[in-house]
């Protein structure tokens, strides 16, 4: 218990030092926040214009897709804010700063997470929260207990899966620093294309996102339950099931650290 408490204290300390660093460059910070906001706002606008032209897609209406879009964005930006230390991890490995982490008496993951807490992503977060509120109000869903629980589960599941993907991205850095671009399709791509329910991309993609990388478990299936398309209560808990994905990610990370220790690259 004591150990957990000190870890939380340390993490908060990390966040605070990150914020203080960022505040050294205030105008840069605000320009960055604006930029992050614009990036996802233009994506939203594109979706908005698509629905001005087409009234629905695979039977999903604008307000339903909006809800889907905003939860994905929220998942992503939550994961990104906390786990983005993994994003610049290639720099850390190349510059040898991971050595420093290994000579300190704390878990490696905690230190990497603490090394970079991306507050500028608050721009995207802001956007996500606004969309989310708008989405919830416009969805026409009556928000009973199971509905609220479903959406909370969706956010938890999504954040965990995206964090796991960032962790996988970082783990690959232990082995190679080339070819990491490929991972973008699973992180940024998933955020981008995940604005629409995964089923619109066809059966194969749905299968892939159910059994390989479990995007659909926290997106499409609970959405079916939320919008009343299915009464199966099981769908409500599927997002929690998506959390299994963190296990292989952690295993890969451990394997990566071991490789680093033996190759010293």
């Amino acid at each position, binding site marked *: 218990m004591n150990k957990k408490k*000190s870890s939380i*204290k*340390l993490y908060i*300390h*990390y966040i605070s*030092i990150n914020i*203080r*660093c960022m505040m*050294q*460059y205030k105008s840069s910070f605000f320009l960055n926040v604006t930029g992050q906001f614009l990036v996802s706002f233009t994506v939203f606008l594109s979706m908005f214009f698509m629905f001005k032209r087409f009234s629905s897609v695979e039977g999903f209406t604008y307000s339903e897709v909006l809800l889907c879009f905003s939860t994905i964005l929220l998942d992503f930006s939550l994961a990104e804010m906390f786990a983005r230390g993994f994003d610049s991890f290639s720099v850390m490995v190349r*510059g*040898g*700063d991971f*050595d*420093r982490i*290994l*000579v*300190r*008496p*704390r878990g490696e993951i905690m*230190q990497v997470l603490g090394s970079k807490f991306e507050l500028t992503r608050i721009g995207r977060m802001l956007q996500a929260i606004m969309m989310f509120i708008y989405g919830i109000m416009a969805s026409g869903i009556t928000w009973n207990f199971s509905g609220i629980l479903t959406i909370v589960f969706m956010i938890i599941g999504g954040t965990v899966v995206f964090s796991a993907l960032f962790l996988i991205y970082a783990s690959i850095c232990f082995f190679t620093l080339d070819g990491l671009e490929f991972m973008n399709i699973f992180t940024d791509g998933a955020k981008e294309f995940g604005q629409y329910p995964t089923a619109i991309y066809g059966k194969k993609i749905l299968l892939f996102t159910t059994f390989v990388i479990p995007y659909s478990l926290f997106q499409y299936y609970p959405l079916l339950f939320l919008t009343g398309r299915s009464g199966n209560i099981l769908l409500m808990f599927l997002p929690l099931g998506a959390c299994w994905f963190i296990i292989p990610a952690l295993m890969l990370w451990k394997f990566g650290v*071991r490789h680093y*220790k*033996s*190759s*010293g*690259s």
Partner: protein
Amino acid sequence: MITMENVCKTYKIAKRNAGFAQACKSLFHREYETICALNNVSFTINDGEMVGYIGPNGAGKSSTIKILSGILTPDSGKVLVNGKIPQKNRIEHVKNIGVVFGQRSQLWWDVPVIDSFELLKDIYSIPESDYKNNLDELTELLDLAHLLRSPARQLSLGQRMRCEIAASLLHSPHILFLDEPTIGLDAVSKLAVRDFILKQNKIHGTTVILTTHDMQDIEALTSRIILIGKGRILMDGTLDDIKKGNDNNIDETIAELYRAYDI
């Protein structure tokens, strides 16, 4: 006590060739080269000793430091630091060591140095009173009082190195690894750093292992020198052993040794 017994370490490095044709070829096939960083390295260092670890670039100095600090796992051989294997329980091991990488900073660039120290206090879970005592002592010995409030990016190299060393000693480690601590420093800072290391060793009995290219460091600090070349220990003795009554200055002596061993 630190012991290394018959430690070996090899790396596999991908060959990268210049030229367009070679680059095309490497798309399909890549050649690897095996490099032997450490070859049967053995030595023992007692508590409170100060040891200079010297050798040309790529001789295996960093690999040794990395193995002793638990960053790198050796291929074979036995490594014991205070009776324990560094790689086995990393977290317990690193509580007792301090590491200064001369070429890299552990300070946060944009915030006052003291903020970085405060964070280290939480990382190492240093009790408040110990932290205060250590900080006061280090501030005095390294003359940090007027530096602690400035961000690291505004410090000169010498000022920063003094802060780096303090940062590595806040948790009162028994062993201190210094990887080229005086690289790029001006004369005044060099003297200040050397003076401090001597005092630290005297007051706290800290074991110090120092790699450097600066032979004046060695002369000023260490009684024992370990010379490594091409992954092998070539010499292990005192400064006088190396000089052998020769009147040359230390740089010439070492240069001669390098030539003699063809490294």
